[in-house]
């Protein structure tokens, strides 16, 4: 009897789980359907066009007008937590001509910026571009998008919340999938997202190398694919409707300019990098390194180390540098303004070397506090919420029939003690 009861209990658990699954997932599916329903009354409201074309045309017209109004209002009113417009327009950069093939450039010295051309610029062959779906030009209002992020992190939480906020502001609905840094899970989510048939799919690729296949799948399914935050290779760009995100190289070069000026064009610099192999590794190390080498030839590179993101490990590396290089060490460039900065500042304080200038890629709460206290000389401004806002802005512009740039970057700034108040409270 007990055995039977247990089996029934097991079945009940499974049934409840199954029903939960069905109910839990059915709610979001209504979004595209609602869009159609919402647009139907607009058909009757519009209507000066010929009868054959009237439904689509008038729907688009009415919805488009409302969408454009919503868009303008969102751009003007939605702000990041540090008080900057979240849906600010993107910045575009001209891509200089490469000074050789990828193989030829690879042979150049690390300090020559030409070597990093294909790392720095999204330079792809446009003649190989896939056939992208044309803009419906009927407005962003009522559109449903799916955003597939890379994984759980404080930054991702901030990004996701901002993305939802920005979508709501322009009249779109969204679902955000989090594969928790797993490549195969992200692949599964790509398939799942295609199956949902949303109006657009945004992806922050877990692996830039594998992104081409992911974006190809989406584009082949006739859904516009947007690449967000992480740069991808030239092959993947052929399947990306638009890329939005930070220009890490430009940000770090700008920071290096300010550092070079502060050093009066002389001295020694050491670098602590991001995780080896990722795009921030190259941008945050070789961006400032090549910039200083070109503009300030008297500034020498002393060392490059990759101790990771633990404050204790970074502190040890910096302490070793201070012992080894002595007064020749004048500045340190960090890929991270939180744990790396904390470890560096601790080592400098322990050695009593207040003269060493520390700059970092930012901006986190710890980084802002260190800039305020003067321990961190300067850092770059990379807005997480602005990143989400620019992605939503680009998608909305696409739905509104506005020409969008294939590559647009979020704005940047250099944060110092003088202007840090303009960038607080920090976003994450």
């Amino acid at each position, binding site marked *: 009897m*007990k*055995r*039977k*009861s*247990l*089996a*029934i*209990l*097991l*079945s009940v*658990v*499974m*049934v409840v*789980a*199954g*029903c*939960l*699954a*069905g*109910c*839990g*997932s*059915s709610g*979001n*599916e209504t979004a595209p359907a609602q869009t159609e329903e919402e647009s139907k009354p607009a058909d009757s409201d519009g209507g000066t066009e010929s009868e054959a074309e009237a439904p689509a045309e008038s729907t688009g017209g009415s919805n488009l007008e409302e969408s454009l109004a919503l868009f303008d209002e969102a751009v003007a009113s939605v702000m990041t937590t540090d008080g900057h417009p979240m849906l600010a327009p993107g910045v575009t950069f001209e891509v200089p001509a490469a000074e050789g093939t990828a193989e030829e450039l690879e042979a150049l010295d690390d300090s020559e910026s030409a070597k990093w051309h294909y790392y720095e610029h999204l330079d792809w062959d446009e003649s190989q571009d896939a056939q992208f779906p044309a803009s419906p030009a009927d407005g962003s209002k009522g559109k449903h998008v799916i955003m597939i992020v890379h*994984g759980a992190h404080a930054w991702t939480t901030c990004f996701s919340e901002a993305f939802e906020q920005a979508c709501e502001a322009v009249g779109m609905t969204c*679902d955000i*999938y*989090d*594969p*928790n*840094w*797993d*490549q*195969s*899970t992200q*692949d*599964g989510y790509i*398939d*799942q997202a*295609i*199956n*949902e*048939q949303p109006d657009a799919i945004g992806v922050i690729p877990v*692996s830039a*190398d*594998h992104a*081409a*296949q992911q974006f190809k799948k989406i584009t082949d399914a006739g859904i516009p694919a947007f690449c967000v935050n992480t740069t991808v290779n030239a*092959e993947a760009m052929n399947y990306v409707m638009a890329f939005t995100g930070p220009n890490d190289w430009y940000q770090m070069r700008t920071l290096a300019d300010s550092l070079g000026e502060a050093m009066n064009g002389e001295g020694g610099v050491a670098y602590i990098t991001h995780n*080896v*192999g990722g795009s921030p590794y190259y941008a945050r190390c070789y961006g400032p390194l090549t910039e200083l080498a070109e503009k300030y030839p008297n500034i020498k590179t002393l060392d490059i180390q990759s101790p990771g993101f633990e404050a204790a490990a970074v502190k040890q590396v910096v302490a070793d540098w201070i012992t080894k290089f002595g007064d020749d060490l004048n500045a340190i460039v960090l890929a991270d303004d939180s744990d790396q900065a904390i470890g560096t500042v601790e080592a400098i304080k322990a050695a009593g070397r207040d003269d060493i200038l520390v700059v970092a890629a930012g901006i986190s709460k710890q980084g802002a506090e260190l800039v305020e206290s003067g321990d961190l000389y300067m850092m770059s401004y990379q807005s997480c919420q602005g990143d989400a806002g620019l992605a939503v802005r680009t998608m909305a512009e696409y739905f509104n029939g506005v020409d969008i740039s294939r590559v647009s970057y979020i704005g940047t700034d250099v944060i110092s003690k003088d202007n840090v108040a303009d960038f607080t409270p920090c976003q994450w």
Partner: protein
Amino acid sequence: MERKNLKFNGSFLNNNRAYLFLIIVLFAGIFRNNFFTAFNINSVTGNGSLVMWLGLGFTICLIAGHMDLTVQYVSTLAALMCLGLHSRQGLPWLVCILIATCMGVLVGLINGFLVTKLKIHSFIATLGMQFVLRGVMYMYSPEEQSIGRDYSANEALNGSLIPGLPFSLYFLITTLVIVIVMVFMRNTRTGRNIYMVGGNLETAWLAGVKSNQVTTIAFVLSSASCALGGALNGIYSGAANISMGEKGIAPLMIALTATIIGGTDIAGGHGSVLNTYISLVAVAFLRALFKKTEMQVLVIAIILIACICYETIAQYRKSKVLGTRPNLHLEYLKEIGRG
């Protein structure tokens, strides 16, 4: 000829819980838009195929009374090797798959040697092998996190063998191999010996079964199938990286869960690769039902706990009955039609 009475009771439900699980998940899918589309079925079964190979390997070893914790790492290394040999050495795909599978056979032989000859507990032996395999992977792919970006055979495995059939070739190969292994386990002497060794080692020895040899075969079958599945998965997805499955929901955990839901006895000697396969198909569809990873984890965990609780209580009751009146349990089984 005596007909077996089919009774729809608790025992029946328990014995067929993998099928019940699948039916419930598919039923829940009715409430979801676009669930039963050819694209969704194709992608869900295709993306879920890797864990089916892992589940196959894990189940064989568990039936033999051992745990094989290397299954996930064997498949990842096989994927890296397969794509690496093709892209770096330019070897044909079939040769790459063969070499990767041979690597699996080698790992299985080493696992078998450690367990049977050195008498190391399989949990410890295969845990150690996990780290060895990870070390090999880092040596094989020292700087690049990802190998691949060759999609020449990718379309073939993603495509369907028969037009209109909503299953990828990869999934069909997976299913075919599982059916072959199922037949092997049920209808061959070696297959039945694996059950016997897992069920009672002493009895197997008295029956003249070479338990060491059988255990090694189980490990070889497990690792070889995982390597073959991993190599095919590398081609199917077009890329492989060292950290595959280390984040998100670990494939090893899903394989273990499905093996238990499928009714394989943790103590060995009882189980079915077919039931594990059905459970894994159900898990694949279940994951597609839930959009959020945390919900997927939660639901799978609840089902696993329910199954383990049931198994534990049933085992306790069985022991209790056997302890007080040895023949009572046989009488009871006869009564419910399982005698």
